[in-house]
C-alpha cells in the first residue's frame, strides 16, 4: 500500500512536470542534432554587406531546407508536371538556364528573358531584371503562375502537395503548424535558395587574405575593371543594385521596356538591373535577353557597340561625344582573366544544392 501511494506520487509528480519539461525539451531540441529541425548554419561572408532578407523570420532548418530543395526540383509545381525551378536554374551554371537565350517553359513556350543566376539572393533588394518582385519569398509566384514558364496556379500546386503523403510529412517536419499553405511553401523554397551563398571564389580568397594572390593578368584586369566597370558592378556582390541602360540596341522582337514595366516611369525605360558578375564565366549567354554568347562579345559591346537609346547611362557618353567605354584588346583579355577569378567551384559543385 505504502508502495502504491509512493508510485502514485511519482506518477503525479512526473505528470505535473511533464508540461514544463516538454517545452524545455523542445527548446533544447531546436539546438540539438538529433532533431530534424536543427537550424542550419548560414555563414555570412565577412566581405559581404548585411543581408536584406529578414533571416530571423524564416531561419533555415534542415527539414525546411530539404523540403525547399524537393520543391525546387519538382515538376509538380508546373502544369505539365515536368518544368521545375531547377529546369531553368541549373546549378552547374550558377543556376542559370544554360545555353538558352531566353528561358523555355512548359511545352517549350518561350519566355522573353534570360534566367539570371541564383546566388547571394539574401543580399538583393529586389528581384528579376526589372525588379518586379520585392521579396524573395514572393518570387516563386511569378514562374509558377506565368503562362510561358510553369503555367500553373498556386491553388493547384497546393492541392497536389496536399495529396502527396511525402509532402505532408515534409511540411509537418519543417513547420510547427503542420500546414501545407502558400506561406509555408514559399518559406521552404526561400530556405533552400537562402543557403545559396557564393563567396568562395579566388577573388574572395584574395580579398579575405586567405593565402591566394592574383596573377599579373588578373591584377591588371582588376585595375581596369575598378576604373571602368565598378561604378555599376560594385562591391563584393558586383552590383550596386541600381537600374541602368547600358546601351544595348533594342531588340524589336521583345521591345522590352525594362524597369518601366514596374514603375510606369518614362525615366526607367530600357533600364535593367545591374547584374552580379559572380560566376560570370559559366552563366552565358549574357544580358537580360541572352544576346551575347561570350564575355568577349560583352566587352566588344561596351567598347564599340553601345547605342544611344532613351535613358542611356551618362557613363557611356564620352567627352568627345563617342559612346561606350573604350577598351584595348589587351584590356579585354585582362578583364576576362579577372572576371574568371569570380568562379566559385565550391558553390557550383556543392552537393547540398545538387538535384541528385
Amino acid at each position, binding site marked *: *500500500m*505504502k508502495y502504491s*501511494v*509512493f508510485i*502514485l*506520487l511519482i506518477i*503525479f*509528480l512526473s*505528470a*505535473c512536470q511533464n*508540461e514544463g519539461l516538454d517545452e524545455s525539451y523542445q527548446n533544447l531540441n531546436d539546438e540539438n542534432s538529433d532533431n530534424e529541425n536543427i537550424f542550419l548554419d548560414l555563414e555570412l561572408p565577412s566581405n559581404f554587406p548585411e543581408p536584406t532578407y*529578414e533571416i530571423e*523570420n524564416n531561419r533555415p532548418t534542415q527539414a525546411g531546407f530539404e523540403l525547399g530543395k524537393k520543391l525546387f526540383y519538382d515538376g509538380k509545381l508546373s502544369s505539365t508536371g515536368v518544368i521545375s525551378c531547377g529546369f531553368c536554374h541549373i546549378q552547374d551554371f550558377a543556376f542559370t538556364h544554360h545555353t538558352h537565350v531566353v528561358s523555355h517553359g512548359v511545352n517549350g513556350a518561350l519566355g522573353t528573358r534570360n534566367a539570371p543566376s541564383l546566388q547571394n539572393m539574401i543580399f538583393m*533588394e*529586389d528581384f528579376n531584371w526589372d*525588379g*518586379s*518582385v*520585392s*521579396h524573395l*519569398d*514572393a*518570387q516563386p*509566384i*511569378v514562374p509558377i*503562375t*506565368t503562362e510561358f514558364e510553369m503555367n500553373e*496556379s*498556386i*491553388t493547384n500546386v*497546393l492541392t497536389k502537395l496536399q495529396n502527396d503523403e511525402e509532402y505532408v510529412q515534409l511540411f509537418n517536419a519543417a513547420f510547427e503548424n503542420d500546414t501545407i*499553405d*502558400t*506561406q509555408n511553401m*514559399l518559406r521552404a523554397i526561400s530556405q533552400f535558395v537562402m543557403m545559396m551563398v557564393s563567396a568562395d571564389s579566388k577573388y574572395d580568397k584574395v580579398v579575405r587574405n586567405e593565402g591566394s594572390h592574383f596573377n599579373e593578368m588578373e591584377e591588371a584586369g582588376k585595375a581596369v575593371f575598378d576604373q571602368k566597370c565598378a561604378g555599376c558592378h560594385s562591391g563584393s556582390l558586383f552590383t550596386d543594385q541600381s537600374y541602368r541602360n547600358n546601351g544595348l540596341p533594342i531588340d524589336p522582337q521583345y521591345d522590352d521596356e525594362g524597369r518601366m*514595366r*514596374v*514603375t*510606369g*516611369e518614362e525615366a526607367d525605360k530600357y533600364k535593367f538591373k545591374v547584374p552580379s558578375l559572380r560566376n560570370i564565366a559559366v552563366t552565358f549567354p549574357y544580358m537580360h535577353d541572352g544576346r551575347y554568347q561570350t564575355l568577349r562579345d560583352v566587352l566588344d559591346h561596351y567598347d564599340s557597340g553601345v547605342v544611344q537609346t532613351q535613358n542611356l547611362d551618362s557613363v557611356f557618353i564620352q567627352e568627345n561625344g563617342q559612346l561606350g567605354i573604350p577598351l584595348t584588346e589587351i584590356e579585354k583579355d585582362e578583364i576576362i582573366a579577372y572576371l574568371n577569378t569570380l568562379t566559385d567551384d565550391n558553390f557550383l559543385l556543392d552537393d547540398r544544392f545538387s538535384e541528385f
Partner: protein
Amino acid sequence: MKLRIYITALCIAFLIACSSDNATDVVDDSQIEVGDLKINFTNTVGDEPLNLNTQTYVKNGGETYKVNELKYIISNIVLTDTEGNQFVYPQADSYFLINEEVAQSKTITLDSIDANNYTSITFGFGVDQTNYPLNGVDNFVPEAEESEMLWSWSAGYKFLKFEGTYSTDEITDQPFLYHIGSHGQNLDNYREISLNFMQPLALSASNTPELNIGFDVQKIFNSDFQLLLSDKDDIQIDPVNAPKIVDNITNAFEIILN
C-alpha cells in the same frame, strides 16, 4: 500510518499545485469576453446600389459608364474603443476580397474580438506591401489569384479591379479598365481609411453588431481628383493616375448604418 497520511497529503498538495496551474490558464482565457462583428459592404453609385452590366451611370465630365466588374481588397482591420484603445484584428486573418458579383464576399465576419464599446474602424485598402512579408499575407495568394487580383509577372496584388464600358459625345461603349496596386518598392498605393461610427458599437459575446459600410463607385472618378475616361481608359501601372485613384478611394467609403 503517519507516513502514509503524510505522503497522501503531499500527493494531494502536488496534485493541487499541478492542476491549479492548468486551472488558472483556463480561467485566464475565459475571463476575456469576446464576440463577433459583421461588416456588410454595399457598393453604390451615389445613394443607389450598384447594378452590374445593365445600368448606365452619369459621371463627371459628361461621360456615361456601365460597370462590368468591381473587386477590391480590404485588409488590416483595427477597431478603436471609446477610450481610444485599439483592438488589432489578427493580421494574418485580415485580408478580404470584396467582389460585387459574389454576394457572400460582401459580408465579412470577424470573430474573437474583445467585448467593448467601439467608436471607429480603420482598415487598409489593398495590401501593405512595404511591410512585406506580413504574417499570413502569402496565404491570401490563392484567393487573389483565383479572382485575378494578382499580377503574375510581379507577384503583386491588384488592390482594385474595376472594368466596364463608357460613352462620350464622340464614342460609345468603349471598354475601360482600372487595375491598381503598388508599383514594386517604387510607389506605394496602399491606403488606410478610418471611419467613425454613428453611435458606439456594443460588441459582446451575446451581441454581434452589424456594421454597414458603403463604397461609392463614382468617387473613384471624382473626388479629390477628377478623372476622365476619355483622357485615359486603361490605367494600370501609372505613376500619375494610380495614386489619384487610390486617394479618391479614401473618400469613397462611409458608414451608412450601424
